[in-house]
């Protein structure tokens, strides 16, 4: 054992100052708790992804294919040719820095490579070095660098520290969509077989079984039946939903996470109760049983393949239109990509609410309506009997999912619903909501457990705003319309703002919904006693 010779004075004289090196000369250390495990080869084989091989992020050698450099450069060339936006985003940035401090990962981590401008430079530097004359000649002076295995590791580490939330894009004077830069980088990494387990597994499951969790039809059905028992205990009402029913008017598709993990399960109970009360002619599908699309985090082609199953099932069942549950990235996919991939879905009809007659003209091409739009319309037309006081024990704030707010512009509908089912609602500060909302910190397939430290860093700015309204207004419930939010914000607020719960908006609707023939409610949707309405023992 080394002799301990430090004097007390020396002990308080340790210099923690990091070395001052340029970003290109600062090596990337792949740290535990910051990354997700590698995917299993069998999952990649299922969807026929290229260059499948065994590797571990913490290992020195990632066993890259022999011609890895050629794969990446050819891949980049293909993407530049295919997407003019990518070419533009590579060329146009003037490094003004407007985006630099807008990223939740930079704000929470303090790591400069999490500045969106610098994260994009990780890719741009290779683009310049290989695809621009100035970069080829002037090299580092022109911001170019060589492609090396270390660069691949750096890409992998940092492009999986971006949730494609697009907050930085709101502030970019050129409108550069940094999320699309991350998508391109992830496509390139996917070409090398460097996929995450938390993404590759759900993609394979969804491709084979229709949902991320790999739930088979009987499991889905029994999960829903589980909810029905709870609903009966709460309301006394027996609900009998249908599955895979041909000829139903509406196909309902929601993220599979809502079927299994709390608090998403309570949101699923809310859907069941609402549809029963309306007498809606709808069906669940055990095949198109996933609203989310983790393929979106691998490649454009994979996202398209997974998206198509929803429409194939709608066609098979012969429904008129599709109603979608509370999800985030599902709606970015539907709103911004679906119509280009598969549309227009002419075999379906333009969605019309059978209850109010409202035409959802915004869904004319996709034929798919977000449940928040559907429910807000019901409330607007006074079609629901609501007892707000059943949510009086909750002081609610609302977190805009990045994808529903920035991706599809749905800002007011969830708020309208919450204000009609709750008496106590408080907004978080202006710069942290709506178009400028902070990400939950765990989207785009980063909601694994092994990277919890990363998730807490990314979750800090959102949680910080929640903490503010908790201290100011006593907020105890963080509502949202996204399954990943429900799953991941629970952990984030448990660390940063203990004593705050997370719920889907339709859980609040279900609490307030006065159903025909229901018994006097003494329990809320979580089967907790309703304050002031407890059953006498």
């Amino acid at each position: 054992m080394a002799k301990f010779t430090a004097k007390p004075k020396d002990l308080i004289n340790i210099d923690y100052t990091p070395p001052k090196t340029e970003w290109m000369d600062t090596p990337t250390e792949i740290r535990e708790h910051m990354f997700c495990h590698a995917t299993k080869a069998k999952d990649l084989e299922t969807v026929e992804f290229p260059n499948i091989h065994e590797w571990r992020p913490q290992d020195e050698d990632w066993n890259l294919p022999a011609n890895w450099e050629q794969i990446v450069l050819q891949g980049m060339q293909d993407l530049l040719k295919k997407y003019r936006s990518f070419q533009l985003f590579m060329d146009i940035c003037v490094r003004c820095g407007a985006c630099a401090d807008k990223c939740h990962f930079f704000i929470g981590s303090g790591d400069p490579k999490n500045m969106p401008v610098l994260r994009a430079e990780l890719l741009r530097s290779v683009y310049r070095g290989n695809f621009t004359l100035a970069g080829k000649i002037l090299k580092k002076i022109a911001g170019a660098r060589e492609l090396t295995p270390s660069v691949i590791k750096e890409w992998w580490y940092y492009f999986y520290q971006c949730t494609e939330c697009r907050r930085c894009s709101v502030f970019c004077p050129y409108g550069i969509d940094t999320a699309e830069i991350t998508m391109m980088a992830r496509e390139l990494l996917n070409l090398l077989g460097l996929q995450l387990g938390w993404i590759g597994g759900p993609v394979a499951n969804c491709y084979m079984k229709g949902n991320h969790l790999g739930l088979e039809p009987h499991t889905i059905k029994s999960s829903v039946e589980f909810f029905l028992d709870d609903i009966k205990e709460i309301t006394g009402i027996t609900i009998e939903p249908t599955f895979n029913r041909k000829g139903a008017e509406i196909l309902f598709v929601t993220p599979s996470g809502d079927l299994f993990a709390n608090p998403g399960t309570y949101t699923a109970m809310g859907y069941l109760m609402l549809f029963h009360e309306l007498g809606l002619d709808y069906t669940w599908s055990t095949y198109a049983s996933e609203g989310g699309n983790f393929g979106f985090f691998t490649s454009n082609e994979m996202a398209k393949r997974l998206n198509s199953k929803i429409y194939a099932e709608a066609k098979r069942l012969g429904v008129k239109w599709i109603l979608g549950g509370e999800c985030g990235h599902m709606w970015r996919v539907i709103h911004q990509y679906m119509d280009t991939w598969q549309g227009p879905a002419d075999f379906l009809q333009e969605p019309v609410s059978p209850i109010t007659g409202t035409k959802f003209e915004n869904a004319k091409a996709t034929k798919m309506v977000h449940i928040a739009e559907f429910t807000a319309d019901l409330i607007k037309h006074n079609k629901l009997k609501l007892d707000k006081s059943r949510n009086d024990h909750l002081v609610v704030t609302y977190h805009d999912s990045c994808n529903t707010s920035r991706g599809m512009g749905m800002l007011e509908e969830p708020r309208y619903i919450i204000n009609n089912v709750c008496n106590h609602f408080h907004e978080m500060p202006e710069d942290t909501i709506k178009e400028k909302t902070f990400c939950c910190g765990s989207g785009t397939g980063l909601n694994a457990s092994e990277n919890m430290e990363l998730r807490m860093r990314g979750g800090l700015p959102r949680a910080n705003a929640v903490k503010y309204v908790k201290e100011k207004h006593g907020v105890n419930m963080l509502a949202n319309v996204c399954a990943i939010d429900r799953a991941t914000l629970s952990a984030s607020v448990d660390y940063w703002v203990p004593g705050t719960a997370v719920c889907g908006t339709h859980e609040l609707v279900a609490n307030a919904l006065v159903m025909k023939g229901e018994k006097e409610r003494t329990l809320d949707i979580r089967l907790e006693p309703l304050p002031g309405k407890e059953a006498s023992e």
Partner: protein
Amino acid sequence: MKLYEFLSENKTAIVSAWFNEILASYPSDTSNFLKNKKDRFANPVGQTILDGMEGLISQIIAALKNREGLDNGRTDPLLDGIVRIRAIQEFTPSEAVGFILGLKQVVSGHINNSSNGASEFSGNELIEMGSIIDTLSLRAFDIYMSCREKIYELKANEAKKLTFRLLQQANLINESRMSDPCFLNFKNTDKERKEVLK
């Protein structure tokens, strides 16, 4: 002049120097942002650290003045704000909490630069201040550990949440395990929860 009076008079300068000290543990691009962005929502790390440091200095001054020791009820939340952030950033444990000990040097520097230097203050006062800072440092370590334990608890809870309903439906959860308090949050019915709490 008493030491607490000196600290009160120089509070702004001491907080500023201490803040600069902790900022130096971040890369320079980051420390500029942490220092200059004053909005608490745009810059929660910088503002939480600054607010925490101001509060801690006030508490140290109060403890020296009243000679009643630290009020942990007030200092713990201030420490928690800073340490909770540093516990999940790119720091070793000693780096995460070491900033507290750094205050000794910051105060020493100010004392040495004052007209009379350390001779102005009694040895007891200086020892007392050192002891207060040591206490803060130890409590910061407790908070750091609770934060790290929380991270592991969150990981474990997520795994349980994902599998609980499946195990329950498959009737694979042993009755004795069902009564384990760690499953309490995952109970599905009020009746089940009441059973456990009995």
